Structures are given as structure tokens and as C-alpha cells.
């Protein structure tokens, strides 16, 4: 294994470099996955039938909390990768743990939000609008849930094996995934929630 010391550790071997590029290609496919969900959502957003509209069920406070928690977690994992490049294992792990806690907070608010919707009579079966709303939000939430466990295993590995070319590479790829979830959330926040609440 040829190690190139002029590059950050996560890029230091040919295999590492290709792993990262490959993950970007995967993210390209993820963009398309969420692209199709947004397409269906925008197409069906007015098909509310007997059920509520977005303006009737969306509430600003939980949505703002979710946005703030996810945005901050994205910033914190960026600090984690920075600490990793400095070779500071303890700082890196601290930032990663904070990231996952913020992710859990996000999920807490989202689950609570889903239960509120359910009690207000908006379920997956209520209307075409609620079906697509829950499918889009749920797909993002499922990604965050998966990311939580992925991150947990990354933390355990780095704690056990230290910062090596292999673990640095895995951590960096996980950080790409986590940032990407925030990018998707920006679009959900803007074009589902804000758009829905300001729709007249």
C-alpha cells in the first residue's frame, strides 16, 4: 500500500481516493432519489382531498428546531474532520459524539412531529398530499437513522484502532453522507415547510 504523505490521511492511498470518488457518485444517485420524491410531492401537494393542507398542520417551532439541530450537527462533524486532519483523536471523537447527539435530537423532534400530525388526522392514507409528505420526510428521517448507527460504528472503530488511513477514510466518507443529509434538509425546510406555510 503506497502512502502519499502530501495528501490528508483519508486520501493517502489510491484505494482511499477511489472510495471517496465512488461515494460522490453514490451521492449523485441520492440527489436523483430525492429529486423524484420532490417531483411527486410538488405534483400532489394540492391533492389534499378531505384531509388537511400543509398550511393547516405545519408548525414553525419544531421545524426551526430540526433545522437548527441538523445545521449545527453538520458544522460540528466538519470540525470533527478538521480535528482528524490535525491528528487529534480525542477532539475528533468528541465532535463526532456531539454530531450524533444533535442527530438524535433532530429525530426526536421529527418523531414528535409525526405523532402530532397523526393525532390531527393526517396519516399516510389520508390524501395524496399526506402520502407524499410522509414518504419524503420519512425517507430523509430513515437516512438520518441509518447515519446515526453508521456514525456509532465509526466512533467505535476510531476509538479502538486510532486514526489510520483506513479509519480516516471511513470517517471522511461518513462526514460526506452526514453533510448531504443536511443539504437535503435545506430543500425540505424551504420547499416543503416554508413554501407550505406561506402558500395562500
Amino acid at each position: 500500500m503506497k502512502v502519499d504523505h502530501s495528501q490528508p490521511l483519508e486520501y493517502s492511498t489510491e484505494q482511499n481516493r477511489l472510495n471517496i470518488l465512488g461515494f460522490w457518485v453514490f451521492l449523485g444517485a441520492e440527489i436523483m432519489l430525492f429529486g423524484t420524491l420532490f417531483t411527486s410531492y410538488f405534483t400532489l401537494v394540492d391533492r389534499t382531498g378531505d384531509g388537511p393542507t400543509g398550511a393547516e398542520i405545519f408548525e414553525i417551532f419544531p421545524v426551526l428546531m430540526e433545522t437548527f439541530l441538523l445545521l449545527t450537527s453538520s458544522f460540528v462533524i466538519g470540525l470533527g474532520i478538521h480535528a482528524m486532519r490535525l491528528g487529534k483523536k480525542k477532539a475528533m471523537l468528541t465532535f463526532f459524539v456531539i454530531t450524533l447527539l444533535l442527530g438524535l435530537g433532530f429525530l426526536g423532534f421529527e418523531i414528535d412531529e409525526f405523532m402530532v400530525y397523526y393525532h390531527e388526522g393526517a396519516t399516510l392514507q389520508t390524501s395524496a398530499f399526506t402520502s407524499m409528505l410522509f414518504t419524503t420526510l420519512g425517507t430523509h428521517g430513515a437516512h438520518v437513522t441509518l447515519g446515526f448507527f453508521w456514525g456509532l460504528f465509526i466512533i467505535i472503530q476510531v476509538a479502538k484502532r486510532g486514526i489510520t488511513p483506513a479509519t480516516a477514510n471511513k470517517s471522511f466518507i461518513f462526514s460526506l453522507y452526514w453533510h448531504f443529509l443536511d443539504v437535503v434538509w435545506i430543500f425540505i425546510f424551504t420547499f416543503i415547510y416554508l413554501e407550505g406555510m406561506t402558500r395562500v
Partner: protein
Amino acid sequence: MRELFPAKQVWGFVLSLALTAAALLVYFFNMSRATGMTIFIVTAFIQAFVQLVVFMHARETDDSKSIFATLYYAIFIALITVFGTLLCMIWGWKY
């Protein structure tokens, strides 16, 4: 301690918060739909770009060209799908 908080990322975070606040203006103030949608589109895409460049380090290595080729291709196809579908299913074509 200070070296753990690089200025570039802190500014990226501040900028993200500012853009979120800018999008919120549409919620708190009465605006026409066209103005509101313009603010939404501008703030969302800038914020996505900040994430990609500042936090995901998309520009840092020799693979940058391949990374952006993949991204632009994916975004292009996604936008075609969204707006093409809206054109067929909602807006229609008046002539």
C-alpha cells in the same frame, strides 16, 4: 483549542444560519408569491453550495472535476425531472 475551529468553517456555519434567517423573512413578512419563491430558490441553492464547498471539501483534490461533473449531472437530471413533470402534470402548455 483555537486551532480546532478553523475560520473558514465557522464562517460557513454563520453564513448558513444567515441564509436560513433570510428564507424565514418570507414567513414573517407578507410578500408576493414571486418574491417569496425567488428568495427560497436563491437561499436554498447558495446554502447547498456552501455545504458542498466548505464542509464537504469538494474542491480540494485532483478528483474535483469528476466530483463536480457527477454533481452537475445529477442536479441537471433532477431539475429536468421536477420541472418537466410539473409542466406535464400541473402547469400545462398554453398556445
